């Protein structure tokens, strides 16, 4: 084992100890690693902005609870990106503006999980707090447990899958993202409506269940929530004009 400025190499896994390194140093070290690398991030102690802005397909295991914006801005346009796993819970805005790659949170996520994400996959094994998937622009967000109020607020594209119950104002001011809920829905937000599950929806959900491993979710038990398309002025009939 070699130790250099808080960076250790253990077999083929790079060990980053957050107690030894500032947040910028952690992110710089991660960015310097070649694709295919494996990293164990120790003692995060709820620190913000860990593992942000990474384009390469490295594997990161966060050993503890992380703060805000974990994995934000990661990935590339083609959907590739790092594979991040958190053995704990995360603060606000996990995977904010995610472009590609995968983030798996073993615990729960605080507010605004996957905010404005354009691609990639976010799997929350616990619950997600308010406004999960706010302004989602693509990619997929799967929550094994419950989702808080205003989940999917103004989401434009992409998919949100909720294995538990959804809080109030689900899908408020929704654009063209799809939301699937297995449990109860406390209330729908403005212009959110219950839609029929099509064969395509079942395919999408089956793939998300496979990827997430949330096999308590059964496509036939899901309720689909989509936009009523009354609140915004786009019309799919005018698609060619946009």
């Amino acid at each position, binding site marked *: 084992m070699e130790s250099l400025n808080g960076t250790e190499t253990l077999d083929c896994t790079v060990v980053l100890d957050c107690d030894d390194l500032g947040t910028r140093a952690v992110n710089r070290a991660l960015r310097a690693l070649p694709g295919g690398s494996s990293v164990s991030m120790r003692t995060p*102690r709820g620190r*913000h902005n860990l593992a942000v802005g990474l384009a390469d397909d490295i594997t990161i295991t966060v050993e503890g*609870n992380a*703060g805000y914006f974990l994995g934000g801005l990661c990935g590339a346009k083609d959907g590739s990106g790092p594979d991040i796993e958190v053995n704990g*819970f995360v603060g*606000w805005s996990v995977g904010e503006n995610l472009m590609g790659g995968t983030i798996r949170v073993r615990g729960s996520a605080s507010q605004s999980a996957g905010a404005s994400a354009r691609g990639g996959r976010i799997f929350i094994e616990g619950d997600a*707090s*308010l406004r999960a998937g706010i302004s989602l622009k693509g990619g997929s967000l799967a929550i094994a447990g419950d989702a808080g*109020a205003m989940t999917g607020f103004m989401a434009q594209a992409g998919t949100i899958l909720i294995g538990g119950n959804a809080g109030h104002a689900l899908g408020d001011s929704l654009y063209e993202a799809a939301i699937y809920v297995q449990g109860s829905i406390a209330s729908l937000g403005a212009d959110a409506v219950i839609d029929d599950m099509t064969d395509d929806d079942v395919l999408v959900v089956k793939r998300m269940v496979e990827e997430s491993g949330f096999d308590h979710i059964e496509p036939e038990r899901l309720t689909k929530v989509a936009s009523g398309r009354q609140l915004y002025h786009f019309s799919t009939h005018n698609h060619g004009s946009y």
Partner: protein
Amino acid sequence: MCGVVGLLLRDPSLQPRLGELLVPMIEALDERGPDSSGIAVYADRPATELPPTLRLSLGADEAVDWMALGCSLLEVAASGAEIHRFGAGLVLDVPEASLATVQERLAAEWPQVRVLGTGWNLRVLKDTGRPTDTCARYGIASWDGYLAVAHTRMATESAVTVLHSHPFVPARDLCVVHNGSFSNYATVRRYLLDAGVRFDSDNDSEVAARYLANRLQFGDDLEEATRWVMKEMDGFFTLVITSADEMSVVRDAFACKPAVVAETSAYVAVASEYRALAELPGITDATVFEPRPEEVYTWSR
């Protein structure tokens, strides 16, 4: 932004370590509120203390010769009064019977001085500047007690001064800290001014604190009074409210401002962010959760 902290100790053996546990919590939230801070600590007094003495915490926005003030107040307060001095203020133990006399002398001779808080068990410290520096300067780590509430302030609605800093103590042993902003506070303040309530600052959070105390005066319990604040005060808030034997936390309907609670058999801790809880003993085994919007959570000693 702003950071809020509350720490209620259930395990009496932790009481000598209250300050030591509190300081890292405040330091973790330093950057959420770098312009000023305030700390209130509740500690048990000897049951045999006679006559019963009240603890007065004084502060001011102008320079004050605190020792001269202390000596001047000792002249009118009965013997046995104790003085603990710190930078922007003073904590003074005064027999309850002498309280009115002390207040009269303060008003007559030290008009720039305000009572930051009054309580049987309570001392309050406020100062401008980085919260981390304030903790170090006044040796907060050595303070003991069973309950603490603290605030790191990033001012949005009013000036950065000692008297604008939280916690606000609108009644004996009642403290309020606030992360957020109220939009209708001028309206509520006019109502309170008409009802004879006096203010020490033009801070929006002080309005919420004094409205809460106003409701308690009408006979509401703490939870009812807190519900009135939610009903009448328009804005964003995470509030931590403490009394001599209770700690409450409440968030607005949209949960615009963060809050995390950690609960063990030894303590209940609330903070704006988890990283402020990360150094607490036994945190890995604690029940950690976010308070739901518009739900009043209350813990007793």
